[in-house]
């Protein structure tokens, strides 16, 4: 309907979007200005190739496996199904470094898998390199893809499955007429989203990659910066990185599906197809394998972590405090940017400003870090602002997700109560106070929790800036792992999990309170 929309935060929304664009563009200009010199060497081209290859493998494997897992979860009812779907949301907020530690404990050189292989007299497998990076990316993104597909399955009207049951359609026909059209809709978006996420992933490559054959662009930036202190090469690589990731993100903007992170309130109805024994066996095996793949690494961290918890070095607690501070600041910055932006976008028809948010996904944290290092280096010691810069970059990275969570909620509230607000002449402050915040508390709390958890667990730009005396908990954990203090690292990992989940839980709880109206 050609209706007059209420305007709630046009000016501040434009200002926030402008700020985000300015932070990213200033960093980009800074690296462009410094990116002089000999051009790209063979090692840089190898890094580019590896970045794209691992992202392609990671997204293809995640999406491929997710189709089977989501299908099994969609058509089976079993005890603990809801819990498992909730568990699928956990890797998204799980600190990368913790998951890597867990994956090492299972798949690493002295891990459980190699113990098993040793028992049957096989040579041990190495988890480092391409397959390690892909393994970790699948660990993180298989659950994300599965949840996207589950949404797709839930979006198929129950009546269609009832009709299929009445006509006694066999499973292959159900797949053809009901499921494959949905998959064709969801899969490209899921592939694109995961591809972009993996392009800019840093911590996984830092811990499981490395060397001439398994270095991503992000990691190459870090090494040029940190080890060679070759700013112009780091800048050159940053330009390459944002070109690749920006192109992919721009492409993804058109096909990425809306993200709903909730558990899915209503239980789907019963299913009558795929009752045959082979299908049942296949689904059970898929679910059991996925459960093992996701739960074993976590268990492998938690068990030694409990032992390590007893004698943690003091530095762990200090780092934990820093991490909490960074997370709190990052939540504040994210809210300061995302709320006005979402308010502005929700009253517009086109998603122009959402593109600005997606820019945060494309612009790699290390590119922004490198750029701002170049910009502030002449004025202040970058080390001294390591924590605020980390918080800002974390907020920018969380922004695309926050916007995708907030905007639909805002649109919903405004479509229900926009007319009433206009009829009563509520000003924009009153609309925020009486309509948006109370109606969208759940979404706001969820976005804040996600930002906080991602920020607590982030090992990215902090690695560029930090000096030995200043570390967040993930960075400290990385250092402990590098020093082979595995017991202490596991203890720190447990603290980190508790912090990340705790921050998420507190924010999410705030959102859920009074949400019954």
């Amino acid at each position, binding site marked *: *309907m*050609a*209706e*007059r929309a209420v305007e709630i935060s046009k000016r501040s929304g434009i200002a926030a979007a402008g700020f985000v664009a300015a932070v990213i563009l200033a960093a980009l200009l800074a690296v462009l200005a410094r990116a002089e010199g000999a051009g790209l060497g063979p090692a840089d081209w190898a890094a580019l190739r590896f970045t794209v290859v691992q992202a392609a493998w990671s997204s293809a494997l995640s999406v491929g496996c997710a189709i089977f897992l989501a299908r099994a979860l969609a058509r089976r009812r079993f005890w603990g199904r809801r819990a498992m779907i909730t568990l699928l949301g956990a890797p998204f907020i799980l600190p990368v470094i913790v998951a890597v530690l867990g994956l090492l404990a299972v798949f690493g050189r002295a891990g459980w898998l190699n113990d098993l292989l040793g028992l049957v007299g096989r040579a041990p497998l190495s988890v480092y390199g391409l397959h390690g990076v892909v393994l970790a990316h699948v660990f993180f993104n298989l659950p994300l893809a599965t949840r996207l597909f589950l949404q797709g399955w839930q979006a198929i009207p129950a009546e269609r499955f009832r009709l299929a049951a009445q006509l006694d359609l066999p499973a292959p026909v159900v797949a053809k007429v009901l499921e494959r059209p949905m998959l064709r809709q969801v899969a490209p978006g899921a592939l694109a989203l995961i591809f972009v996420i993996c392009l800019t992933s840093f911590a996984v490559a830092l811990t499981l990659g490395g060397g001439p054959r398994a270095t991503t662009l992000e990691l190459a930036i870090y090494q040029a910066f940190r080890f060679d202190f070759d700013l112009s090469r780091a800048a050159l690589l940053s330009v390459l990185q944002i070109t690749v990731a920006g192109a992919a993100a721009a492409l993804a903007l058109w096909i990425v599906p809306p993200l709903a992170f909730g558990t899915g309130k209503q239980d789907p109805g019963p299913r009558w197809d795929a009752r045959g024994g082979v299908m049942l066996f296949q689904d059970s095996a898929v679910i059991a394998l996925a459960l093992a793949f996701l739960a074993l690494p976590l268990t492998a961290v938690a068990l030694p972590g409990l032992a390590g918890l007893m004698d943690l070095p003091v530095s762990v607690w200090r780092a934990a405090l820093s991490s909490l501070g960074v997370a709190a600041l990052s939540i504040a910055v994210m809210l300061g940017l995302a709320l006005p932006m979402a308010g502005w976008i929700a009253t517009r028809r086109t998603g122009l400003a959402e593109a600005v948010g997606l820019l945060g996904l494309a612009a790699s944290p290390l590119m922004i870090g490198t750029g701002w290092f170049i910009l502030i280096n002449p004025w202040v010691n970058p080390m001294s602002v390591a924590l605020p810069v980390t918080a800002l970059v974390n907020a920018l990275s969380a922004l695309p997700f926050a916007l995708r969570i907030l905007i639909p909620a805002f649109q919903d509230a405004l479509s*229900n*109560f926009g*007319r*009433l607000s*206009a*009829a*009563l*002449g*509520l*000003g924009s*402050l*009153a609309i925020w*106070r*009486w*309509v948006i915040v*109370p*109606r969208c508390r759940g979404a706001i709390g969820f976005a804040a929790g996600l930002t906080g958890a991602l920020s607590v667990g982030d090992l990215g730009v902090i690695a560029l800036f930090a000096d030995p005396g200043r570390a967040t908990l993930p960075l400290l954990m990385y250092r402990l792992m590098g020093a082979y203090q595995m017991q202490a690292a596991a203890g720190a990992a447990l603290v980190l999990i508790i912090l990340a989940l705790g921050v998420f839980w507190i924010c999410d709880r705030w959102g859920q309170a*009074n949400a*019954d*109206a």
Partner: protein
Amino acid sequence: MLTLDKLLIHQGGFQLRADFQLAPGRKTAVIGPSGAGKSTLLAALCGFVPLQGGRILWQDQDITDAPPAQRPMAMLFQDNNLFPHLSVSQNVGLGLRGDLRLDAKDQAAVAQALHRVGLTDHRDARAATLSGGQQSRAALARVLVQHRPLIILDEPFAALGPAMRYDMLDLVAALTQEQRATLLMVTHAPDDVRRIADDVVFVADGLAQPPQPATQLLNNPPQALQAYLG
């Protein structure tokens, strides 16, 4: 006096014209087949739907481009008339001040309005916890404190049962009288028209006809209206 001066509303392929005046103090029912544009007409009068042509005048003042809150109307929609997460008195208070900083006089007005619609005992309840009838009463209490010369109702009682709906219509009639307001309301039921309306605006075939005396029209309906009434 509200003047609809050669109004033209365009929406997609849909078109509606209206050219008449509403005399002060009259209670006018808007009837017509669904999809004819009754709700759209009301939404346009209240400033929610832009006009393609024509003007809206109130006491000879052009309000065609005035924002909804600066028009002389208090409107109730088909649903979402209350903020479900706020209390009843907050909902009513929002009719006075958007920031809810109510002075003693405002609070007295809220209390009196709640008393008038019989909701004094529910003033602190959240709107979501009220029954359908109570929600309608709360919304009417807000219309009372808004104290606008025009009350516009877009079938806010459609979801209520007949007895409850009649209660509400009687309440609306009484309140309109007390406030010396002009009433314009959409309805589907000829019974409602007989119960409350002085005049009828019949909307069909892209035209909102000028108001005609209700009894006369219902007792002697022209062909199009007869077809609608069945």
